[in-house]
């Protein structure tokens, strides 16, 4: 082989490498417009309760740990962490050299000030949940923070991914000021700064050029508040928005046909189910697992997902979503109306009559799906009174009641944990979580499940936790406290001019590193 040929080859290689470099690099963008539905009630990480708000705020305020689009925990403001052998404390090593956007350094003392604010008895922190099991917080030195617990919290790392536990500049949360109680303009360490907000219209973020990590492509990202799904669709079709969340479900097939658009049906963590009322005062036939299993066979989940939800869900194959830690597949109640009829007859429930309610507009095609389910149940010989529907507060008022006050036999509900761990998802099956203590509205009780879950919630060995959640899941699947329906997907639409829009499997979008295509 001649030297000239080798030289030519190396030139070609260098050239192709250069070419790859330019096409692979992200283009700089000016503005990304994202149309969302609800108007944020608050932008305070501590006070918020909705995923859309969490999405916006998490671009400004960062947490110790981050969930990536694959659903894996990745270090963010903490570079590593350690649990004590007895699980009674956690020590986080903080990323050094990070500054808040007001110039204050991010230190263990700053982190402690945030946790102190959250745990202050006067603070409103609806999503604090298990974090209240923290007893005290020590700033060991500048880069080490130690959380001492009242009892082991196995899901602590999951909690640390929630923006509820994100870090604000200590100057912006000085004790005794209004900002301590409520944040209008959070100041964090994130890749974007909150620069403008017009209530009811938009929230605008501007790139943080001092950001410690990789810099995003878009100079600004604007969240436009558009409550009507059809109007959001019009925005993306006319190119006036680059990304929209939740298009009208019935238009998903048409949007998928459009070459100028991309439809993302991201995996989610929200299980949609019908809760059987198993309160001692309820319909005695529904106390029988045999009857509940029969009804699970009576509903054609695949068909309803296809024709009513237009593919925006996947039928459940376990009592929780597959994106959660602790998930294992437990089976499927494949549609078989004859089997359902036989099982009902065998259980003496041929004349079963049930009262059924469902919300409207809370979950994707919720009431429409409930009507389809009612049809299937009727076909199996069940006398269905309903579905009746009402607005969300009234609905909660009907289902979130003490067992003795329950009035309906079957209700549709969606349940999505805030972080990708079974602990919060499984509260639905813990008898200690019956209303009003929690929202386990099927009033299901199985002592074996209760003890398995209690164990899994506190043990520190991940393999043992996984096993316990799996055993509990298998018991629950057999007991069928729910009519298991599907795990809802998270539909988004982007124009073809944008690339890099991702989703995190807890109903979140991730547009930080989106760029022009």
């Amino acid at each position, binding site marked *: 082989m001649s030297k000239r040929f080798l030289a030519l080859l190396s030139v070609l290689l260098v050239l192709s490498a250069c070419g790859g470099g330019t096409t692979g690099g992200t283009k700089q963008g000016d503005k990304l417009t994202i149309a969302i539905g609800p108007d944020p009630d608050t932008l305070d990480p501590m006070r918020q309760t909705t995923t859309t708000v969490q999405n916006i705020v998490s671009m400004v305020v960062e947490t110790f740990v981050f969930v990536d689009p694959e659903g894996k925990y990745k270090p963010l403001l903490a570079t590593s962490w350690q649990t004590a052998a007895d699980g009674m404390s956690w020590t986080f090593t903080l990323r050094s050299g990070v500054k808040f956007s007001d110039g204050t350094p991010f230190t263990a003392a700053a982190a402690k000030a945030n946790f102190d604010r959250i745990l202050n008895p006067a603070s409103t922190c609806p999503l604090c949940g298990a974090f209240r099991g923290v007893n005290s917080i020590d700033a060991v030195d500048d880069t080490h923070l130690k959380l001492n617990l009242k009892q082991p919290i196995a899901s602590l790392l999951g909690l640390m991914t929630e923006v509820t536990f994100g870090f604000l500049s200590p100057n912006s949360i000085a004790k005794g000021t209004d900002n301590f109680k409520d944040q209008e303009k959070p100041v964090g360490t994130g890749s974007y700064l909150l620069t403008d907000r017009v209530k009811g219209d938009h929230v605008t973020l501007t790139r943080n050029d001092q950001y410690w990590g990789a810099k995003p492509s878009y100079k600004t990202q604007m969240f436009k508040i558009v409550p009507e799904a059809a109007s959001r669709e019009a925005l993306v079709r006319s190119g006036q928005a680059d990304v929209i969340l939740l298009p009208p479900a019935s238009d998903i097939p048409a949007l998928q046909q459009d070459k100028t658009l991309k439809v993302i049906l991201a995996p989610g963590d929200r299980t949609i189910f019908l809760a059987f009322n198993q309160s001692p005062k309820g319909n005695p036939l529904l106390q029988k697992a045999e009857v509940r299993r029969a009804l699970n066979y009576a509903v054609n989940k695949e068909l309803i997902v296809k024709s009513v939800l237009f593919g925006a869900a996947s039928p459940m194959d376990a009592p929780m979503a597959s994106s959660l830690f602790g998930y294992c597949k437990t089976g499927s109640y494949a549609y078989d109306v004859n089997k359902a009829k036989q099982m009902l007859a065998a259980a003496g429930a041929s004349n079963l009559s049930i009262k059924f309610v469902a919300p409207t507009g809370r979950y994707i095609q919720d009431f429409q799906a409930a009507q389809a389910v009612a049809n299937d149940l009727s076909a199996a010989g069940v006398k269905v009174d309903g579905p009746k529907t009402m607005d969300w*507060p009234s609905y909660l*008022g009907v289902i979130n009641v003490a067992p003795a006050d329950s009035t309906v036999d079957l209700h549709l509900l969606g349940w999505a944990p805030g972080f990708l761990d079974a602990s919060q998802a499984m509260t639905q099956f813990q008898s200690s979580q019956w209303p009003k203590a929690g929202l386990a509205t099927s009033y299901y009780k199985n002592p074996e499940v209760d003890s398995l879950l209690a164990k899994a919630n506190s043990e520190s060995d991940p393999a043992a936790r996984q096993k316990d959640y799996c055993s509990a899941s298998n018991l629950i699947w057999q007991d069928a406290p729910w009519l298991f329906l599907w795990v809802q997907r998270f539909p988004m639409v982007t124009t073809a001019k944008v690339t890099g829009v991702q989703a995190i499997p807890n109903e979140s979008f991730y547009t930080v590193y989106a760029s022009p295509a």
Partner: protein
Amino acid sequence: MITYIARRVLSGVPTLWGVATVVFVMARLLPGDPARVIAGVLASPEDVERIRQQMGLDKPLWVQYGNFLGSLLRLNLGTSAHTNAPVIEEIGSRLPYTIELAVVALVLAVTIGVLAGVAAALRRNTMLDLLISSFSVFGVSMPVYWLGLMMIIVFAIYLHLLPAAGADEPTSIVMPAVTLALFSLGLIARMTRSSMLEVLGQDYVRTARAKGAPLRSVVFRHALRNALLPIMTVIGLQFGALLGGAVVTETVFAWPGVGRLLIDSIFFRDYPVVQGLVLMFGTTFVVVNLLVDLLYAYVDPRIHYT
């Protein structure tokens, strides 16, 4: 005149007290627990209880009512339970959008509606009359939701002329204002036509024509001015209603007005904001009615208020 205005303003006070009481009771008759709705489904009972206390909902109803009236007297509408911001701030940030939309829509509706009504009356039973009357019926009976979406499809998606939704561009107001104006326009045109027809048959109009007054002056000075009273009543009522926010129009076009704020607040059972808004609507109607009555006296010198 001054005493008349003073008397009317004073008589508005019991009206508004009635409105305040009715909305206070109605808000609490709605099923659902506001504290739970605001805290979300994942919140613990302790957090729900804390929010309930912050909202003052743990107190007996009559204490809540007393506190509500007491703060009202001090012109304090309270704090939104949902956003934690003062109600006056919540309404204040939305009201300019509603006023802007209402005024533009009303100006459109009044100018076009009155002119169309006059033209239809003058060309009674011709093609023009038929055209205008059909258009008025169209305007009154067209569902806003459908019309709004059709306009978005044509002007935003196909023609790329106007923004589909939002309020951040100067042209953003065009589609919501036109959609909103159509209903009032139809109503005003129909009222103008029938009122004008009544007046055009009167002796003084014939006299004015007979003495050789130019048509323009006959129509606008002699006829329209006398036909104006019922039209003004319709315009006043329409303006009052427009200032109350247009829920569907605001929702379809993502216009951040008070109509959407009201709906959001009802869905969150945010009592203070619902109360504040309904009181504001009540006050608007009292004021607009008073203004219309005062305008009567200006248009018709025979009317005196003492």
